[in-house]
């Protein structure tokens, strides 16, 4: 199995820490309970946990400002969120380079696009490919081997500067989609024949 180390590490950290917390809780509780187990203590527990009637006079006065504050905060977050959508996107799409504000080709940009089929080339240590999005395309050069599941027909985010119409990338990240499909014979052949559809 590929990448088995990372997968095993993820799962063992997850299950191990859950089990550890569970066991530690049980052990601590056991030792505490052993120390406290006395009849007087039982009475204290019974007292502690008996519900008391509400005191309605004070609770209503407390509720109103809380509701108002809650509403204010929710509205505030909504406004902030809507506002921010326009401002600090993580990346620009290929077709927005030089068009959209903040995506000028004069400074460092992060560009998102799909690697064109058949455009991937290895020249010495440099990886060259063309990425496209929404009809526009942009050649990219990257010094080194992109990591992750980098391949043709996959959406990527390239960091770098545009020089003479070529993006000189200093970093390439793979932005995989949120679609998951099980690998099986039928689909593999289908994927190979109509790769970039």
């Amino acid at each position, binding site marked *: 199995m590929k*990448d088995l180390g990372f*997968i095993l590490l993820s799962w063992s950290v*997850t299950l191990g820490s859950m089990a550890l917390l569970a066991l530690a809780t049980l052990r601590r509780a056991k030792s505490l309970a052993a120390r406290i187990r006395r009849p007087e203590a039982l009475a204290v527990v019974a007292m502690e946990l008996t519900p008391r009637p509400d005191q309605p006079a004070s609770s209503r006065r407390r509720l109103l400002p809380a509701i108002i504050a809650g509403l204010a905060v929710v509205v505030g977050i909504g406004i902030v969120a809507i506002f921010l959508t326009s401002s600090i996107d993580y990346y620009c799409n290929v077709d927005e380079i030089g068009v959209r504000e903040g995506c000028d080709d004069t400074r460092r940009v992060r560009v998102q696009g799909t690697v064109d089929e058949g455009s991937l080339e290895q020249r010495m240590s440099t990886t060259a490919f063309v990425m496209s999005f929404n009809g526009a395309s942009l050649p990219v050069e990257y010094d080194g081997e992109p990591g992750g599941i980098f391949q043709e027909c996959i959406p990527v985010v390239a960091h770098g500067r545009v020089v003479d119409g070529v993006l000189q990338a200093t970093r390439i990240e793979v932005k995989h989609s949120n679609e998951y499909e099980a690998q099986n014979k039928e689909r593999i052949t289908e994927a190979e024949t109509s790769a970039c559809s």
Partner: protein
Amino acid sequence: MSDTTPTPHGAALLGAGTARRSLGTATPATRIIGLLTLATMTWVVVSAFFITSPDVVQGDSVRIMYAHVPAAWVAYLAFVTTAIASGISVVRRHRTLGFDRVAGASAEVGVLFMGLALVTGSLWGRLTWGTFWQWDPRLTTTLFLFITYVGYLAVRRIDASPERRAKRSAVLALLAVLEIPLVHFSVVLWRSLHQEASVLNPDGDVRLDGLMLFTLFSGVVAFTLGFVWLVIHRQRLQALVDLQGTVGLDSAIAARATEAVLR
């Protein structure tokens, strides 16, 4: 009074009144939850590793998803539980601190699961994006959420009276929970390297194969059961700790009183 009608809960706490002694915080109900957790968790692990097939694009690394997504989901659930319990403990004026204890226990477990989501996500990111960490909106906001609740737990650990601790931490929890929608929708709002949710996305269609979806779903069930078990036990543990303080004080007073009489 004490040995005639102890409340079921109090009896369970100390293991008295049940056939088996020295149980600490376990009751029949939690034992059933514990067994269910073990059973579902076993199925999830078996299915994640051996039954489901690798993803078309991601290959085997998709197997991390069955741990990552449930961990993140349970962390959200835990923080919302903390906020609800805190809200109740602020609004109601019960003398019992039960809700506060639930809030604290839930936040403890939530921090653990958020940490797990960050670790597994980081490993998954290395395999798929090619980087362990990137300052993108989803990852950054998640990290802030994690730090916020670490701070919340730090406040709870402070040596103050339980009532004061309850009030201060309740206000914190109610402020902190507001970050959650921001974290979850940061993927939709800002463009992010992190993929959008596959199940809880705005379009409402599910983008997973049948068996993969079922495994993911059972992962969520298993992790949620584990969360419930942990919260119940940790809540009772906190009750025991508080109780120890009271009992310790009582016996100390009694001892000093005897000394005074003898002298």
